[in-house]
């Protein structure tokens, strides 16, 4: 993991195996499939379901400070806990959960490199036993959207400014407007296909190797810089609902150390449907 700007944001599977009983560490699984954790998880890991636990049930938004505190208490997480996320699909939902934790400025949040797939491929143990921990002690600040989250109007201003960059991390077919969702996924949710003007297309999963671990710092730098996504710019990433782009956000911010990166979680399901917003095909 040498060469990354913030190598401490990443741990490997061996590190996790050595810290399964460390009371200062909480392992958190976050998956696309809501039953995957229940089918078998890393011993001692707790589950966070992005639909039920991170999203507000009424407003299209994330949970507020009070509910985040309750969630932390219920998972046995305190302000000084090291939280390590892992999950399915190259850690796609794991980085999404980490991003939400960072909206509340949780200090020590990391990703297990390679995620669930690598843990299993290495023959490491899984269990169905759901652990129980003493309640955490947590005081969260108000959610801070300004630093790492972008809203529609900000994106509209962003694409008219110089010194900015916009990265569309969806599949090439979604970027061109041929599809409204990834290949193989049900087509849904947007009236128009295409992308936000000025966006370049760098599919999120191009940042990982076949074993789901992140590519080297040099490879990643080249991948993004070759399309004009460079650290001197104010960068916004988006996808369909903000989950794939939180993966790219993690790469740019923690692995490459870009100073200003935000995730536009409204993404194509907002932009592609919104009245009065321009698109490109």
């Amino acid at each position: 993991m040498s060469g990354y700007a913030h190598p401490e944001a990443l741990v490997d599977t061996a590190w996790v195996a050595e810290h399964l009983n460390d009371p200062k560490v909480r392992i958190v699984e976050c998956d696309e499939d809501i039953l995957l954790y229940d089918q078998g998880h890393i011993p001692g890991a707790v589950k966070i379901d992005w639909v039920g636990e991170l999203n507000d049930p009424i407003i299209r938004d994330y949970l507020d400070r009070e509910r985040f505190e309750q969630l932390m208490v219920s998972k046995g997480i305190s302000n000084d806990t090291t939280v390590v996320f892992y999950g399915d699909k190259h850690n796609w939902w794991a980085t999404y959960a980490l991003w939400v934790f960072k909206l509340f400025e949780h200090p020590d949040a990391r990703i297990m490199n390679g995620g669930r797939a690598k843990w299993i491929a290495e023959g490491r143990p899984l269990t169905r036993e759901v652990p129980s921990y003493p309640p955490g002690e947590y005081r969260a600040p108000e959610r801070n959207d300004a630093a790492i989250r972008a809203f529609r109007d900000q994106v509209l201003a962003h694409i008219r400014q110089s010194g900015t960059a916009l990265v569309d991390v969806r599949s090439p077919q979604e970027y061109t407007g041929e599809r409204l969702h990834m290949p193989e996924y049900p087509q849904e949710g947007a009236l128009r296909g295409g992308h936000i003007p000025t966006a370049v297309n760098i599919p999120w999963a191009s940042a990982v190797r076949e074993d789901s671990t992140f590519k080297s710092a040099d490879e990643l730098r080249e991948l993004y810089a070759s399309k004009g996504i460079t650290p001197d710019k104010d960068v916004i990433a988006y996808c369909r609902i903000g989950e794939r782009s939180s993966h790219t956000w993690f790469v740019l911010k923690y692995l490459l150390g870009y100073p200003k990166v935000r995730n536009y979680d409204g993404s194509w399901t907002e932009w592609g449907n919104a009245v009065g917003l321009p698109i490109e095909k």
Partner: protein
Amino acid sequence: MSDLSSALPPRLRAIVAEFQAADRAEKLELLLEYSDRLPPLPDHLRNNRAAMEQVHECATPVYAAVESHDGRLTFHIDVPEESPTVRGYAALLCDGLEGATPEDVLAIPGDFFYAMGLHQVLSPQRLNGISYLLAYLKRLATRELAKRNG
């Protein structure tokens, strides 16, 4: 629900009732139990993708096939273990439609899973994917019907 009940084969009706009586956590447990119980493919279908139909709208690689004995259907569905939600849904369909006629299958309302309350535990995205599965089984049933009548 009375209209729906009469439109469902008895085995599927019992499964729907089982889910209806379950709270949110129990629904997930039930779905996982079904996922665990999805029968393995019979020998002649194992490693024989050409004999099965891929459910293209599903985010996970799902394959389905049907067999008919005396006009009664048996569905076989293959879903990877990494997708327990889809697996669970596939398993309850296999179980619920065991021994049904093609007409029974075609009469099932496409949104019957709402009655099970699955929309309370699965996000719209997740529901969207699984709703295609029944449509594929109906396509297979239509084919069996055509064979029988043709």
